[in-house]
């Protein structure tokens, strides 16, 4: 489990012992992120590409005056690229890094649902080679016979940010 200490909303979770997860679809698979790290969900808007960045960094958007980078999760996980459709959205999350919090967005095929999942329902993910980085996954959960991949969004997002470039 992530050992994050959120002040608000966390109380409810502490009482019930369950965590709420927002799930979304990526190439038919369902992924979940801790709902406390989700800031907002917004429709696709035009993205300004940034030069000299990896392909999965789509660019930056204007989020009410703040410049927010957008990561294409399909590309991040090495999935086939897809056209943006009617359900494609940006999920804006707050990722906790070593030194600071970053507000970043990710492109997902569609937002699915919100589930309550208690910690003992979360099963560790088997080591399946390097399909996606093992660090990204906190565990697997089953709801209504569907498997959900729970992501450690802090790791996913911060790994998309490379170390500051040395200027000299």
């Amino acid at each position, binding site marked *: 489990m992530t050992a994050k200490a959120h002040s608000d909303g966390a109380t409810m979770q502490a009482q019930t012992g369950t965590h709420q997860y927002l799930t979304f679809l990526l190439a038919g698979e369902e992924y979940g992120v801790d709902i406390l790290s989700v800031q907002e969900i917004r429709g696709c808007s*035009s993205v300004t590409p940034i030069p000299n960045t990896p392909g999965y960094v789509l660019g*930056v*958007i*204007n989020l009410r005056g703040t410049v927010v*980078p957008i990561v294409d999760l399909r590309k991040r996980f090495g999935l086939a690229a897809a056209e943006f459709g009617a359900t494609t959205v940006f999920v804006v999350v707050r990722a906790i890094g070593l030194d600071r919090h970053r507000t970043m967005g990710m492109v997902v095929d569609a937002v699915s649902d919100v589930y309550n999942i208690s910690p003992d329902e979360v099963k560790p993910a088997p080591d399946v080679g390097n399909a996606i980085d093992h660090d990204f996954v906190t565990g697997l959960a089953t709801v209504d016979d569907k498997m959900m991949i729970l992501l450690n969004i802090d790791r996913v997002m911060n790994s998309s940010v490379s170390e500051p470039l040395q200027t000299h």
Partner: protein
Amino acid sequence: MSMDLSEFLAVFFEECYEGLSAMEAGLLALDAGCTDAEAINTIFRAAHSIKGGSATFGLNEIPQFTHALETLLDQMRNGRCTVTRDAIDLLLESVDCLREMVDGTKAGTELNAKRIALVQRQLENMLSIGESASEPIASPAAKEHPSADKSNPSCWQIFFRPHAHMLQSGNDPYRLFRELATLGHLQVEADLSSLPSWVELKPESCYLAWKLWLEGELAREQILEIFQWVEGDCDLKVEKVEERADETQAQAESEVLGERQADIPNEVSSPSATGAKNERAGAGQNTGSIRVNIEKIDVLINLVGELVITQSMLNRFGEDFEQLHMNGLRDGLIQLTRNTRELQEAAMHIRMLPIGASFNRFPRLVRDLGNKLSKRVELSMSGENTELDKTVLEKISDPLVHLVRNALDHGIEAPEVRKAAGKPETGLLQLCAYHQGGNIVIEVKDDGAGLNKEKILRKAQEQGLVSASDTFSDEQVQNLIFQPGFSTAEKISDVSGRGVGMDVVRKNINDLGGHVQIRSEANKGTILTIRLPLTLAILEGQLVRIGTEIYVVPLTSIVESLQVEPTRVSSIAQRTGLYKLRDEYISIIRLAQVFHGHSHALDRGQLVVVEADNRRVGLAVEEMLGQQQVVIKSLETNFQPIRGVSGATILGDGRVALILDVPGLVQGCIDRSLTPIAA
């Protein structure tokens, strides 16, 4: 219930620092041979305000210390004590000491009691020398605080803070004091800090606290006896005050001070916890506040007034919209545009501070360093009133100190050497600041030996920064001193020579979006020129289009822009594009290639000629769009630094546009083109 002291404390500290700077400036003027009585008066007044202010806030250490300082100044003023170099050195040291005390009090840390006691003793020694030389009677001012009067056999300091209900039990502080007065000479100082506003004042409650000094040969028991009746109804501290020289005593006193400091915020915090929090937050860092000239505020208020008028005018069109009113609406919008721009400028001006705030530390630095290195240096400064952004000002201070130290250590020679070279023995160090275009320029100029080209090259080769076979132009050699790890000093002194310096200086300046340039001539001197943007928040930009994207080129780096004439384009080794601009060839950076990995035909586009680090480069873009001011947004806040991009901004249509980092692009282009040659 009680007054919020924290707000006043912050103002007090600010005034203290101003007073200290004034004292320092005055002392330096005295040092330069000024015998004007007014100069001493100025110093005296500053010391006096600090003493008065700190006593009001109940910070006993500072008034006690300042008192001795003040007495010495008073004697100088009356001509009873001569102004010697030693005296000025001591006074300057006292100013430093006082500054430390103010810093310590502000941060709430333990004061360096040893140093304070030492300086105070020196001050008193100087006083007693002055006294024995002229007349044995101590100056009248010395009587003000018996605690500072060292001829006293014994003096008790009593802190007496009755609890609010003490009066209800029939005890009257006045009676206690009268009894105390029968024991010896009594001085009373009331602490009004807990006094509530008139509305909240309860006549039956006691809000005051007192500080008393009682002189005379008596025992602690005698004093405690008097307070016996009110025991449990008050906070009482009785301390023996002895001669300052007693170190342990000084320690004890500083402890008392510490306790009192701890008392004050507690009492303050109850009515307004936020105020106390602010104070604590402000204590650690630099002043979070800024002093703004009232004129600037007036301008701002006027502009806001105009804005409101424009708004109401536009409102009218909104309520009753007709085609007929189109012209009025357009006029209104034009007015709004003008208002916004003026408002923005005025708001920016509030953050602007004169660079003198940073310059004023140099007279002292130059004096001290000159003495240490036995060099004679005259410092001349100009353009102290040139204004620049507070953030820039704060960040430029350290690099400037570095450059000044370097100029003194490496630049200006020892008097004998100068004489031999046919120069005046006293070296001249000039600091000037002025505006040029959208930049502020700061020059550090010395008339010393200049950069020694051979020595630099030799050192650079020894340190493995360059290989022996390379040849360099003068300019390239001079730029070697900005390399990390470079130092020409034969031995490392505590002034300079560690080789961490110039590279840091350049990095700091580059981080601020500025650049530093060096010009040097053997035996004539060195000029370091720093160019900085006026503000970090807003930038005049030229919008350009590359593909479907819009980028912003900072206007300050643009030299000119032109339509590409295909006949003037040529290339070297099929790679580096060149453009013949009048009589010179400049290299072309194809932005589409650099940013998007594919290029457009040059003949369709335009060339923006930019200058960075003294090099001209043409940026090939597809189309030039308008010019406008853009608000700089950081990419690093949520992401990471990007090579060639200094930030982002949001355009009128809500899209994000990237701002080009011209020096970075130029450097990147040179690095790439040099790689095969250097390797």
